[in-house]
Structure formats: structure tokens, C-alpha cells
């Protein structure tokens, strides 16, 4: 009998003294990995096409972004966004030159332009962008995609 009684009494509570430490650890992890969004999208958020032969973009400070997508007002033609305003194709040259001015000489050959274009954009728009990039000799580009099979793009 006495054996059973003992069991009921025991069972010390779990100490929660280290709980704040654990939570702080998680907190610091998320604080460090958080990237606050720098640019607001003025166009509809582009739905990127899918691809599987991809390369990861390293060193984000060397990447400048060009967004291509439909306008928020429902118009059907492609809009181009540089930094935080909608621009024309002609503005790309000055945009690239301005990006270059913020980097040192050594970094300039490694500058990459990432094209984040909606999957319903037209190749004509993309081609205009590429022509402008060639004009200023910004030759490294990256077509931004989502992971997935490229065959899924073709389904309507």
C-alpha cells in the first residue's frame, strides 16, 4: 500500500526557469534572419514562372531588381517597376547607372540584374529590357523563377 501512496506524492514540476532563454534564442534567430521589405510593389505582385534548372542568387547586395507585371488598375499591358515607382523602358539605363554608382569598382563586374516578371508578361517587354541592359553593358541577368517543374507553366 505504502508503495502506491509514495508515487502520488512525488512527480516534481518541470522547471520553467530556462523558458525565457529558449524563447530568446528563437527570438534572436528570427531577428537576424528577418529581411524587411524594402520596396513596395506598385504593380500587381508578379506570379513567377516555374523552373528547375536554377541557380541561387548569392550576395543580394549585388543584385538589382526589375519587376514586370500588370498594373493594379487592371490594364492588360506590362508595367515595369524600378525601385519604387513605375517607369518606362527608357529609365532602365539611368537606373543601372545609379545602381553602379553605389558600388565600388571591384564589385561592378559582379552586379546582376534580376528580372522578376509575371508569367503572363510578354516576351516583347522582356526583350526591350534586355536591349536596354545591353546598351549599358549590364550583361549578367537572372530570370527569377519559383522552384517547380517547367512543364507546369504550359498548363492553362
Amino acid at each position, binding site marked *: 500500500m505504502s508503495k502506491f501512496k509514495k508515487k502520488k506524492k512525488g512527480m516534481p514540476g518541470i522547471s520553467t526557469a530556462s523558458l525565457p532563454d529558449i524563447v530568446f534564442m528563437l527570438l534572436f534567430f528570427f531577428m537576424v534572419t528577418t529581411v524587411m521589405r524594402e520596396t513596395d510593389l506598385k504593380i500587381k505582385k508578379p506570379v513567377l514562372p516555374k523552373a528547375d534548372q536554377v541557380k541561387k542568387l548569392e550576395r543580394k547586395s549585388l543584385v538589382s531588381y526589375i519587376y514586370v507585371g500588370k498594373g493594379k488598375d487592371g490594364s492588360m499591358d506590362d508595367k515595369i517597376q524600378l525601385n519604387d515607382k513605375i517607369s518606362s523602358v527608357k529609365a532602365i539605363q539611368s537606373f543601372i547607372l545609379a545602381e553602379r554608382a553605389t558600388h565600388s569598382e571591384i564589385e561592378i563586374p559582379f552586379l546582376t540584374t534580376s528580372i522578376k516578371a509575371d508569367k503572363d508578361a510578354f*516576351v516583347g517587354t*522582356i526583350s526591350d529590357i534586355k536591349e536596354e541592359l545591353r546598351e549599358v553593358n549590364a550583361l*549578367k541577368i537572372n530570370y527569377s523563377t519559383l522552384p517547380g517543374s517547367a*512543364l507546369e507553366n504550359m498548363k492553362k
Partner: protein
Amino acid sequence: MARRENPEINAGSMADIAFLLLIFFLVTTTMDVDQGISRKLPEKQDPNAPPPNIKEKNIFDVLVNRNNEILVQNEYVEIGDIRQMAKDFIDNGGGVDAEGNPCDWCNGARDPESSDHPKKAVISIESNRGTNYATFISVQNELVAAYNELRDAYSLKNYGVKFDELSLEKQKKIKEDIYPQIISERPPVKN
């Protein structure tokens, strides 16, 4: 001496505060990694420069029209077939390269009507201004995949590991001397 002891600060709510902050950062965190198909644009050319002299059989013509239909060498194909067709074309090795060396690592059919050598094989993508971007990316992806599969196969055969696991030197050698990626994007046509 009547000296009162300092009362300790109650740290019991510390966890609550930390939780609050934690939830804030959890919600605002975006963990998107940027990835995509990397491409190097050709340098701007002198408009008076003569066009390069490439034999017809060394060009793999891919055309995507405005209805998102794909023509390879003037025949309608499905997107899923491009990869194998491109591999067969690149790996054909029917002739010799610019220095007169045959392709002794090629596993292709050695058809004299197809490409001479991986170093000479050019893939040309022609699109229309009205082509859908997703289709364009799919085609690009399949062509890059063809090169990646050939490089992987070569690397597995000669070094026993995949291309990605090779040293940078060997990767560079394969990229330049074995299967260089020659993809040319022609400016799209208007109509």
C-alpha cells in the same frame, strides 16, 4: 542597523515579453530565396560587323510563336520533347571542332547531317513579341537542362561524381572545353 533587503525584480513576465517579440518577428519574416535561370547577354555589337558564318547543320532552331506553339527545326513539338532533342543535337559529334579534333566523349548518333561538335553546336531561340513569358522560360529551362544533363553524364563517367560536386577548376574545364553552353536569343519578331 535595520537594513532592508533590496526586493528582487520579478522576472516572471520576461517570457511573456520575449514571446510577444518572437511572434512579431515570426510574422514579419519572409524567407524567400532568390533563384532563377542565369543568363549572360551578348555584348553590343558593331552593326557593320559581318554576321558569323555558321553552317545550317550546326544550328538548332527553336521558335516559339505568338500562340505559344513550339517549333524545333520547323516541326511542331511538345515542350517535354525539347530536352531530348537538344541533347541529341549537342551530343551528336558528327564532325570536328575548329581545331580539327573529333568529339571523342560524345555519345550521339554521329549523324553527318546534324551538329559537328558540342563546341560548334549553337542553339537559337526565336520568339515573338506576343509570346507568353512562362512559355519562353519553360523553353529556356529545358535547353539549360539539356546542357546540365550532358555535363552531369560526362562528369559521372570521367570523375565518378556529379558536376556540382566537382572542383571549380574541373567545372570550368567542362564548361569551356567539353560542353560549352551556346544559346543565342534572337530579338523577337514583331507580328
